[in-house]
């Protein structure tokens, strides 16, 4: 058994006993005939999913209520088998909340749910792009957190962007009801309002580009932003971007520098770009084949400021010819991809069903 597992087991065992002490503290207030015994909160995958206790009284008379709440009882299911009673709340008991068991309008027991993860405060691991200099038609920002973040409220309410050149807070992001988080809810995609970036659209005409060339902007994360278990970041994270001229050219693989590794080694295959590319799309946009068209398994390592990427083989490179396939969805910071500019009209076509174009670079490993 490793240390982590042991720790988890300890946590599981300690929590119910903590709960039991809380209950004992409340017990003298209750009438003995309606008393409850062996109050235990049961955790599953770190979530407080059920409450069990024993009582001689009719199970239908028990109610659960959040401490401090006056009238609304918890939704859930009360099941019983003899004297053993189990309450399954509609959703697990929430970390940081305390609850009471009521009968005939009187409190007869209580318990507190602590943060079951024990992981502490979340951190901002990275802002993408990581570079400090961005074009005025920058399309996306990504924020990588160390753990899943709260799913309630709007992310943009926890991010303050300030035009440092003018000393003013500015609203640059597209407000979406359904925010663009990854499945783990620890990577957030923020669009700088595309309607303001595309020339000719009403938002662009009315308000201009979200960020202006020659200005610098600070992106500040509120310490109040919480993890999914309610722990605030607590620390202010900030990144400053300096805005330069717009990028109105497609990334062109012909301009990229490819450094083949040596044969019979595990050296990286390095690909350098004249500009930073999209950090999240980069590792998804390459595919390697050998001379016979067989796929080669590779892993990726982003270079500084996303201006290069290293492709690492699982086994030693074999000598011979290779083809690097590049998906045309790969974008630069302004959302220009290999086959089209972001600020360009599409001639019909559902963006979903457009043919995915593939560019290729051929090279030899010697």
């Amino acid at each position, binding site marked *: 058994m490793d240390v982590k597992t042991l720790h988890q087991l300890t946590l599981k065992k300690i929590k119910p006993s903590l709960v039991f002490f809380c209950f004992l503290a409340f017990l003298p207030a209750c009438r003995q005939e309606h008393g409850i015994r062996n109050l235990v909160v049961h955790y599953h995958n770190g979530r407080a999913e059920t409450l069990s206790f024993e009582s001689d009284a009719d199970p239908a008379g028990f109610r659960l209520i*959040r401490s401090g709440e006056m009238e609304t*009882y918890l939704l859930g299911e009360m099941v019983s088998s003899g004297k053993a009673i189990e309450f399954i709340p509609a959703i697990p008991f929430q970390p940081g909340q305390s609850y009471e068991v009521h009968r005939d309008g009187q409190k007869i027991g209580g318990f507190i749910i602590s943060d079951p993860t024990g992981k502490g405060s979340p951190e901002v691991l990275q802002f993408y792009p990581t570079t400090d200099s961005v074009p005025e038609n920058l399309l996306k920002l990504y924020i990588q957190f160390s753990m899943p973040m709260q*799913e309630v409220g709007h992310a943009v309410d926890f991010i303050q962007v300030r035009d440092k050149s003018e000393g003013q807070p500015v609203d640059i992001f597209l407000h979406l*009801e*359904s925010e663009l988080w990854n499945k783990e809810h620890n990577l957030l995609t923020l*669009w700088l309002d595309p309607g303001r970036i*595309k020339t000719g*659209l009403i938002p662009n*005409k009315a308000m201009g580009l979200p960020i202006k060339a020659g200005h610098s902007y600070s992106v500040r994360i509120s310490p109040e932003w919480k993890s999914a278990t309610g722990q605030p970041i607590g620390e202010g994270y900030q990144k400053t971007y300096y805005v330069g001229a717009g990028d109105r050219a497609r990334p062109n693989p012909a301009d990229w520098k490819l450094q083949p590794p040596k044969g019979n080694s595990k050296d990286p295959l390095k690909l350098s770009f004249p500009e930073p590319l999209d950090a999240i799309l980069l590792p998804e946009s390459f595919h390697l084949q050998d001379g016979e068209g067989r796929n080669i398994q590779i892993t990726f390592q982003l270079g500084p400021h996303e201006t290069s990427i290293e492709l690492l083989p699982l086994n030693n490179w074999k000598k011979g010819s290779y083809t690097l396939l590049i998906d045309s969805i790969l974008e630069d910071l302004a959302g220009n991809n290999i086959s089209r500019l972001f600020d360009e009209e599409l001639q019909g076509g559902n*963006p979903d069903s457009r043919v995915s174009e593939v560019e290729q670079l051929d090279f030899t490993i010697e």
Partner: protein
Amino acid sequence: MMKKLLFGLAISSLLLLSLSATTSNTSPLKKDFITSDPGIASVDQLAFGPEGILFIGDSETATVFAIDTKDLESNAAGGEISIEGFDGKIAASLGTTADQIAITDMAVNPVSKAVYFSVKMMDGTPVLLKLKDGALENVSLKDLSYSKIELADPVAVGAVDHRERPLRIWAISDMQFHNGKVLVSGLSNKEFGSTFRSIPFPFADTQDYASLEIWHAAHGEYETHAPIKTFDVIQLDSKDYIMASYTCTPLVLFPLDELKDGTHTKGRTVAELGAGNSPIDMISYEKEGKKYFLMSNSNRPVMRIKYENIAGFQESLTTPVTEFATTEGVAYDNLPFPYVLQLDNLDPENVVYVQRTAEGDLVLKSRTVKWM
């Protein structure tokens, strides 16, 4: 004789009712439904179909679920609703506080007139609640009779062989059931593009998607990038149209019969309702023989537009709005209801809405359409 006949009719309709209640899964619409845990990860959009079928738009798994609520008791009216501190009441019933929950959508079952709410917890746990006779009930999302369809990317022609593409993030922005089809507007995180899907129900093995392209007034060309925020289906001169709206509030009409698989439909901008605003919900209703359209907004009051004005507006706005936040196009009235966050038809005579009041309270209220 007449009495007996009526009695007999009543008996047989009772029999029919009980038959339909006990054998609901034999309904052609529910024939593919299975009972298990559907694996719903988030409930972002709700839309009712017939026979108590509730469509759930799950952005996290990019899936539309059709669930059988078995809520088939027919009611002509929804009854009066007035609940103050509504978010606090929901939170308390889930064992938490109002700042730890979000109401993501609201929909009324047209059969029972019960109001359903989707709620998201701090860690994303989805909850489905039903308001019936003033009390909240939990609708389990774990043990359900359902069918589903994934909004998977169509396989890209010419893509490299069997390449595993990372799952795209889908944000389902609005959803509605109309005339045998689930209409879904959405947005993806990677290639910025608005998509609009028309999915036949019962869900088929093969996905039959159609697409829409957005006509932006100021641009004068087709625009595939603006995400639809909300839409409704409206009927003008016996023809169905999608009425869609976007951030900065253009109102655009698309003929529904032109939505066919693989085709792209031209829209017509009939109003520009102001920059610095996002539309939230749309509904239509009838009052004294006339049809009206309502739209709630993030930074503007609920707007009311007469159908006859939409039908009579034959132009397409093609000139840019030059002054910030000015409006153009079809005439509309501002109703005295700001910050309406959820809006739906409760029954033919009433609407139901969730509103943030000037005092900061969140209220759930019904209101007769006479006063809308």
